[in-house]
Every structure is written in C-alpha cells, then in structure tokens.
C-alpha cells in the first residue's frame, strides 16, 4: 500500500480534533513511519529494492526484503517508540495510542496489500499475502476501496460532530486518493520502460 496509508490518519482525526493538541500532520506522519523507515533503509542499501530503476520496476517484479521496517516484531517496536515519543511530547494518552496504532495498522494493511513479510527474520513464519506478487491489480483496487471507506468514515464522523465537510472538499479528497492510488495501476505488471519506451 502506498498513498492509501494516509487514509488511515483520517480515522482518529475527528475525535482528536475535538480534544485538541494533536496536529493532523502527526497522524499522517505516524501512518507512514514504517514506509519512511524503509525508504531511509533503502537509500542506505539495507532494504534496497530490485530493480532500482523506476523504469524497470513493476509491482509484480520488485524484489525487496523489508526485515527491519515492515516485519511484525520490528513494527511493534516502532509502534511502541512512536506512542512513547508522542506521549512524551504531547502528554495526551489518546493521541499517543492513535499514533502508535497507526504505525501498527500500516504494516497490517501492507500484509494484505503489499510484498511478502515475516514475523521477525527472513526465515520466520510469513504473515503477508504477497498480493503485489500474486495479484497486483486486485491489491491496488483493494487499496482504493480501503481509502474510500476511510474517507467516507471521516466525512460521516465530521457530520455527526456538527462540522459537515463542504461538498467540494469532500470530492477533492476522494479525487486525490483516487489519483494517488490508480496512477500506479499501469505499472502493476508492466514496467514503465515497456509501457512508454521504444518498441
């Protein structure tokens, strides 16, 4: 899952906004902690994907081991660290729980929509469906459905709290997620070089 992780940040936002003290950017950041850790490790060559070139990569041909960023036990550690850091900074238990929960939710979503992942080491039991390898188009459409459901939940939650979101902004949010998710669909099985390169 890529952009769809951001949709999870909408789930606790209405309630936390009521209480104040937890900025939305912190929820967005928490929802992507394992991903940003992976990107840093990938740049350092620790969890580097192959192929490295955007032109040669498709969802189904990428080979990557995300042992430190996405395996279950390291993700639990990340969630605990994030929750602890947020509590230390904001002194708000609900915000800390939400941020830690978003970290854990990130990897759980990736176990459904993503690559192969394990409990701890590379030889430990597998916990992911490897949907990018098996059915990348279906995985991307599932990500879209998840995101739309989160947005719907957020808009309903805001309406319940007497802050209905204007129709234009509702549509814009749906559109941004739809574009951010569906733009990867052509590269589900076909690398960009094959799509647009010389024949």
């Amino acid at each position, binding site marked *: 899952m890529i952009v769809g992780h951001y949709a999870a940040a909408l789930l606790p936002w209405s309630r936390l906004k009521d209480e104040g003290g937890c900025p939305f*950017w912190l929820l967005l950041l928490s929802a992507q902690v394992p991903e940003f850790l992976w990107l840093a490790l990938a740049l350092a060559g620790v969890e580097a*994907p192959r192929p*490295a070139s955007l032109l040669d990569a498709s969802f189904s041909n990428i080979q990557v081991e995300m042992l430190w960023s996405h395996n279950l036990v390291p993700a639990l550690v990340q969630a605990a660290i994030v929750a602890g850091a947020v509590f230390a900074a904001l002194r708000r238990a609900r915000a800390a729980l939400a941020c830690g929960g978003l970290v854990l939710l990130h990897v759980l979503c990736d176990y459904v929509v993503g690559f192969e992942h394990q409990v701890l080491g590379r030889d430990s039991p597998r916990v992911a469906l490897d949907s990018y390898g098996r059915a990348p188009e279906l995985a991307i459409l599932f990500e879209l459905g998840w995101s739309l459901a989160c947005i719907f939940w957020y808009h309903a939650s805001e309406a319940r709290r007497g802050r209905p979101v204007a129709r234009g902004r509702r549509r814009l949010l749906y559109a941004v997620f739809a574009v951010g998710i569906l733009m990867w669909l052509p590269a589900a099985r076909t690398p960009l070089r094959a799509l647009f390169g010389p024949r």
Partner: protein
Amino acid sequence: VPTLVLALIAAYAVFFAAIHAIVTRGSGGPRRP
C-alpha cells in the same frame, strides 16, 4: 541511482502536502459549542 525510491519519496511528499492541505484548510479545530 535508485530512481524507484526517489520517485516514491516524491510521491509521498506530494500527497502528504495535498491531503494535509485539503483536510486542515478551513478546519474549525475543536468542536464549537
């Protein structure tokens, strides 16, 4: 050059900014009485 990772970083940054702007613009903060 790991262009795949660089492209992903750019995509994450762009959508972070876009989603944050849409959700928080005109956001009323805590519930009004």
